[in-house]
């Protein structure tokens, strides 16, 4: 079944969701497709490996989704998180097309689960993959193989030769040698640059060296840099990245979902000087989750420390690393290498500012707040008094970067004001065209699926 793809019609660069959607669509249109995935097989799939859901517009119950989620509501949600920094035309295209994507995904092997336990209640807006993103990636690779798509793993694309307004050839390193292919069409779906810490530090400043990368270590932005250097049009702010606060003990790369901590609303968060720096109770957690990455990044050494007591331990999702535990605050400070006196004083001031806690309600904004404290804690403010005391360290975890390739509604890249005739982009590489800042759960997979399919279709049409 596997045709040799020595001279494939289409080269797809990257091996995640968007790349696979493009490859499958193109192969179904009759094109011979070669996927060049820089990761080894066990790590294939880029950040899609770590995803778990797909945000989807729908007019009525659809697959695992209940009720309806209209284009306007979806767009409004997007506008809220991006602060209006979005290309509304492309955003509407992604949103509108998402509805037909869900059955397409199911037809190509993706399986969803009916609903999910835990803290997120997204049954209406987001469809969860059974087994998570890696199972989606596996299903797509199976489908692609059946369609004769060839995949080279550990194939790192180093250069796309731009000749006037078309890509002349693709150069990549594979099995110890440099190879050159001359496909008719090229689809770039190789993600952002967040795994290149030096690039991150150039954009962000030296603090970025302390950031943890939540996803794949293979998104180093090599192809992105190569194309931008040759004048292909860019979109998005290089200083922007999606950063959340995760467990400080997480691995440098690839920690994924399990490193998230949901305990902040029930805690006080201090910096290494044991001083609070922000309102921990500002809003329900999924809503405020993303801002804490930046808050922690702005603190000395880019670390934060969460302090809770025994009564809060079971109010949030279990964490992957057990909390640091102590019978007294002094002992906890010792174990967490915080100044004990300062921590005791911060907690005492906080406790003294807490008022009536009888209205405490862990899952909604309860208005149980501090009085006369700076910064205040505006919800879930209960004194930290009940031993044992628990602590977690926090660090900034980068999910993805926003700088990318600017595309049009056909997913085509451009140089100057002209399209590059045989170059399309999909997924994280071009997500900045729609997502100027912020993030909406499951929207990355929407962009990847919608624009992957568009890119695959256009690339195949060009190749034929």
């Amino acid at each position, binding site marked *: 079944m596997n045709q040799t793809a020595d001279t494939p019609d289409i080269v797809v660069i990257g091996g995640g969701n968007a790349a696979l959607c493009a490859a499958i669509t193109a192969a179904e249109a009759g094109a011979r497709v070669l996927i060049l995935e820089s990761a080894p097989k066990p790590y294939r799939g880029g950040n899609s490996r770590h995803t778990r859901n797909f945000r989807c517009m729908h007019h009525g119950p659809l697959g695992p989704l209940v009720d309806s989620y209209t284009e306007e509501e979806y767009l409004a949600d997007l506008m809220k998180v991006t602060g209006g920094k979005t290309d509304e035309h492309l955003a509407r295209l992604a949103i509108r097309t998402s509805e037909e994507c869900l059955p397409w995904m199911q037809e190509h092997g993706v399986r969803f689960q009916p609903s999910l336990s835990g803290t997120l209640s997204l049954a209406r807006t987001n469809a969860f993959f059974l087994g998570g993103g890696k199972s989606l990636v596996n299903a797509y690779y199976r489908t692609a193989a059946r369609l004769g798509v060839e995949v080279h793993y550990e194939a790192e694309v180093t250069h796309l030769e731009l000749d006037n307004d078309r890509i002349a050839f693709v150069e990549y390193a594979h099995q110890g040698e440099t190879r050159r292919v001359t496909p008719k069409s090229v689809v770039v779906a190789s993600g952002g640059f967040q795994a290149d810490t030096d690039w991150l530090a150039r954009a962000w400043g030296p603090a970025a060296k302390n950031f943890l990368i939540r996803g794949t270590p293979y998104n180093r932005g090599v192809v992105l840099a190569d194309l931008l250097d040759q004048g292909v049009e860019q979109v998005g702010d290089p200083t922007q990245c999606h950063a959340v606060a995760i467990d400080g003990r997480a691995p440098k790369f690839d920690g994924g979902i*399990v490193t998230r901590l949901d305990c902040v609303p029930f805690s006080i968060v201090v910096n290494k000087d044991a001083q609070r720096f922000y309102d921990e109770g500002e809003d329900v957690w999924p809503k405020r989750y993303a801002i804490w990455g930046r808050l922690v990044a702005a603190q000395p050494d880019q670390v934060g420390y969460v302090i809770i007591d025994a009564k809060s331990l079971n109010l949030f999702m279990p964490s992957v690393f057990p909390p640091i535990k102590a019978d007294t605050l002094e002992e906890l400070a010792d174990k967490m290498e915080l100044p004990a006196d300062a921590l005791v004083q911060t907690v005492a001031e906080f406790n003294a500012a807490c008022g009536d806690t009888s209205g405490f309600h862990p899952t909604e904004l309860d208005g149980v707040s501090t009085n006369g404290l700076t910064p205040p804690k505006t919800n879930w403010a209960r004194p930290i008094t009940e031993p044992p005391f628990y602590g977690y360290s926090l660090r900034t975890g980068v999910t993805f970067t926003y700088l990318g390739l600017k595309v049009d509604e056909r997913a085509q890249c451009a140089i100057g004001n002209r399209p590059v005739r045989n170059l399309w982009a999909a997924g994280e590489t071009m997500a900045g065209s729609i997502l100027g800042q912020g993030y909406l759960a499951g929207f990355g997979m929407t962009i990847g699926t919608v624009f992957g399919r568009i890119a695959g279709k256009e690339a195949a049409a060009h190749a034929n």
Partner: protein
Amino acid sequence: MQTDLLQEARRQAEICNACRYCEGYCSVFPALHAERAFSDGDLTQLANLCHNCRGCYYACQYTAPHEFDLNLPQALADVRQDSWEDLAFPQAAGRAFQKNGVLIALATVVGFALLFWAARSLASQGGEGFYAVLSHNAMVAIFLPAFLFPLVSIGISLRRYWRHVGAQPLKPAHLAQAFRQAANMKNLKGGHGDGCNFEDEDRFTHARRAVHQAVMYGFLLCFASTSVATVMHYALHMPAPYGLLSLPKILGLSGGLLLVAGCFEMIRLKLRSDRNLGASGAFGGEIAFIGLLGFVGLSGLVLYALGQTALMPPLLALHLGAVLAFFLLTPFTKMAHGFYRLAALAADAQR
């Protein structure tokens, strides 16, 4: 119980509990997610609930080479295997046979020898058919204890299991749910109904479920055949041999064919699957047990086919020898998993 196996399963369960992507695959995950800390009993229960379908392994973003190095199917298989050895009565027999294919084979040979010896030494007392080789009374004298002993042994083990996992008093509804789930092997359907990942890496197939069903229903049909024959013998005074269209023969023949085909396919499937996702070091014991079970079925069928020839007496001794070994080894081989699995499903029904 081996603390290192439990510790490793605990480490992995805690990572799974923070992730929860696998929630829909099988009963293990909802049970796991209901806990925040895992006692040894909790882990034993999860381990015996796991059907080793491997769906979670192939979906997991944290398997090796990732530093979290998750392999939940193996971690649970190791705990499960260890629990069977630990809860077995007598325990030494569990430790001896569970993982040891050679010992299972030796025990089978001893079974053969015993039956050849019995056929020669215990007079037939002038019976007909099989009873010309070994009298009915001699058969009962050998097989009644060989049947009752495993029942008592398993009964003791299941009581220990029930206490160890901290289950509540059993109600008929729990048992009914357990039997229902075992009957269609819901937990091997993969949650989406596409099957499990036993056969060919991340491809979903129903192969293991189908094969397991063939073995289970084949065995149950054979067992029913013997039970019906016993009732016919004692209650209805209709002694063997029975004709082709008699109930014992219809049940036995269909059961035997299913059992043999199922065991053959199960071994083929096991040889194809990734051994690193099963219990460490148990492969030999598992294959030997399936081989023994398959031989019981096969020798029964051959005995039926050649029962009128001069080969009948040695074939009968081989068949009965294998049956004897199978019965006596039931609490100490993979056969025990069926009982623990039912117990685990019943305990899960209480959740």
